[in-house]
């Protein structure tokens, strides 16, 4: 049985009296400890899929199941302990007036987890930051350091699923490499399952075992890592994306 099962999911937003179908009949299944990628251009609905899993987007049809059981509405504490999300922009996703320590300790307080002190220090170490960062504010950190804190926060409750929404697109190339390496290492260490969204096919190829290409709210093609490397994509849209990246990285 798949760990994450998305079954004919639809998300519809209301915009000035009109229905906008952001996600239409998307079905994806992700196995335990797999790393699955969603690629597509802006507006293709890839982030909305992640947001729907977390309860941040209105589901208008279909179902999402984790280990076979449907998600509760609203999401409960057990869901939060299993599934965490890392957002795109580390400048917007950390509270500007809270220290790193407060940010990392908050989920522990909410869930009544003890031993907060050592857990915060351990979390910093896990993402490769010196304990000296503990009492800094976000504005005292670089973009890469912030994204490490965002990853650390997502891991505080020891979830087994991480939803990664463009985790490196706001970062410089060299910092992107560091954060991608960190994510790979953490997945290996902890046996995590990733569902990762990116507009960069090369990043998805580097990180993921399988991927789905989205366009206009629908999945147009599903590929595995080997097929992508062999340029065996059938859909013209995937080909176009592949060309754009290959051209750039030729």
């Amino acid at each position, binding site marked *: 049985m798949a760990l994450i099962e998305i079954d004919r999911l639809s998300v519809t937003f209301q915009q000035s009296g009109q229905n906008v179908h952001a996600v239409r009949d998307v079905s994806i299944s992700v196995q335990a400890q797999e790393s699955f990628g969603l690629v597509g*251009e*802006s*507006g293709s609905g890839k982030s909305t899929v992640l947001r729907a899993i977390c309860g941040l987007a209105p589901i208008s049809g279909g179902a999402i199941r984790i280990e076979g059981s449907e998600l509760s509405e609203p999401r409960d504490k057990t869901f939060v302990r299993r599934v965490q999300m890392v957002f795109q922009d580390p400048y917007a996703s950390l509270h500007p007036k809270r220290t790193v320590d407060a940010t990392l300790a908050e989920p522990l307080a909410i869930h009544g987890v003890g031993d907060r002190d050592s857990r915060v220090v351990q979390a910093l170490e896990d993402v490769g930051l010196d304990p000296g960062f503990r009492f800094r504010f976000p504005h005292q950190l670089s*973009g890469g350091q912030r994204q490490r804190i965002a990853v650390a926060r997502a891991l505080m409750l020891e979830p087994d699923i991480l939803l990664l929404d463009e985790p490196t697109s706001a970062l*410089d*190339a*060299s*910092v*992107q*490499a*560091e954060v*991608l*390496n960190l994510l*790979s*290492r953490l997945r290996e260490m902890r046996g995590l399952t990733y569902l990762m969204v990116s*507009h960069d*096919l*090369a*990043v998805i*190829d*580097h*990180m993921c075992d399988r991927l789905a290409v989205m366009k206009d709210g629908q999945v147009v093609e599903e590929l595995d890592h080997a097929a*992508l*490397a*062999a340029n065996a994509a059938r859909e013209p849209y995937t080909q*176009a*994306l*592949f060309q*754009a*990246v*290959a*051209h*750039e*990285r*030729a």
Partner: protein
Amino acid sequence: MSLLEVEDLHVTFDTEAGPVEAVRGISFTLDRERLAIVGESGSGKTMTGRSILRLIRPPGRISAKRMTFDGVDLMAAPEADMRAMRGQRIAMVMQDPKYSLNPVMRIGHQLTEGLRLQERMNLRAARTKALEMLEAVQIRDPERVLQAYPHELSGGMGQRVMIAMMLIPEPDLLIADEPTSALDVTVQQEVLNILDALVRERGMGLLFISHDLQLVSRFCDRVLVMYRGRIVEELAAAQMDAARHPYTRGLLNCLPKIGGPRGPLPALDRDAAWAE
């Protein structure tokens, strides 16, 4: 004589902790060609672009041994001359159309504002000119775009509108600060084609500021690599593979490639000596 000559440019910010130099003595020349400045965030590339237009606000200040544009000394020119030059002869395209277009003004109004005020053109003539420019940047239904507000346009359309706006006065030099990094890859190519055509057909000079080495290597003629306020390497864009500086090589190597090895990506080990 080159179109733009910059010699020993410094941009300094006076902070409470003492002066911080964002740009530390760089020199380059630009002709009617495509010159790229690449570097990571904080390397001073945007500050370099802005200082050519003298758009650095206090507490920042600019100093240079020499900075001339088409024979005019940009360091000594009075503010009134600079105003006349900005937009008319040297134009700048900013990174994000979301923050650079006026959100409460229709596109048509923004596009024609300069023509009506600077050139005292009547509304109809200005409108015709605006339509022409929108067509030149390959916007398919320019009539609709003229009536639209910025939020009604996609990122790619907004970026093209900004380019159209900068090109209406037919500048001699265009400074493009990350003009495509907010765009999807397929749209990116279209915008680059437009810029390319302008350089070739109008003989415009283009200063292309970007963080993307791969992109500039196939689009520009020459590349300046900046690191912490200095130019560490200058390359012909076609010879990117021959880059010698470890910083340039590190930037090239740390990108994931399709079908590439899946082990850890090589990290960039910064050497304190590079900044010297």
